């Protein structure tokens, strides 16, 4: 018998609860989708709904992984570099590497500049 996966447990509680069925504004999701690609001409009514749930799962997974890194550093406050490290160490988040590394390089450069100045 198939055991419930991590994601079905996440989905089984609180979805239709306090914040309503969707935890993200569908109009905003639609806007992001439209801007993402010129190939996107029309978006079905269900697509933003699917994405709102997919984003929730994505955020939860990345948050969990980032938190493990926070704990490894014996801290209780998650920093942006924890999120970056979680991205870098997870294969399926490869598409985010440029986004986080670029920012890290900028912040490292800024710190270095401050030290010189």
């Amino acid at each position, binding site marked *: 018998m198939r055991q419930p996966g991590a*994601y079905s447990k996440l989905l*089984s509680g609180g979805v239709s609860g306090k914040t309503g069925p969707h935890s993200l504004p569908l109009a905003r999701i639609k806007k992001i989708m439209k801007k*993402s690609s010129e*190939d996107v001409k029309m978006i079905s009514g*269900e697509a933003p709904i699917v994405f709102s749930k997919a984003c929730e799962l*994505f955020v939860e997974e990345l948050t969990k992984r980032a938190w493990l890194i926070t704990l490894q550093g014996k801290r209780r406050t998650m920093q942006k570099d924890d999120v970056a490290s979680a991205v870098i160490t997870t294969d399926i988040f490869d598409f985010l590497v440029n986004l986080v590394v670029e920012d890290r390089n900028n912040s490292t450069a800024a710190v270095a500049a401050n030290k010189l100045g």
Partner: protein
Amino acid sequence: MSDEIELSLPIANVGRMMKKILPPSAKISREAKERMQQCASEFICFVTGEAAHRYDICWALSSLGFDNYSEAMLRYLQNFRGFERERANQNNKANNSCSDEKDEEISYGDDNTTSTPSFDFGILERGETSTAN
């Protein structure tokens, strides 16, 4: 800058999602939330781009390695469709006093299996059906 903000998910929502999964004593820096916001927006763009080629978000999620998400999505969508159908039927009954039931076609594309509508969004195991209360 305002364009970037418009193309991001609201930071309050993102922060709420993050807090939900962490212990109550955990703290999240503003910058960490902002980074998560950017990552989530990029996730949407990335999958949308793939879906535009694959014609289907769930397929795109699978092909990009987010297999677990696509299975969960399909179940979520089935439940949502059942909920919407039930709501539409209730509205029809309220509007029509006559006894014949008009089955409202909700064109979502694929045929839906006739699952018992469920008001809660609990995910069903494969092979199980929900029982309406």
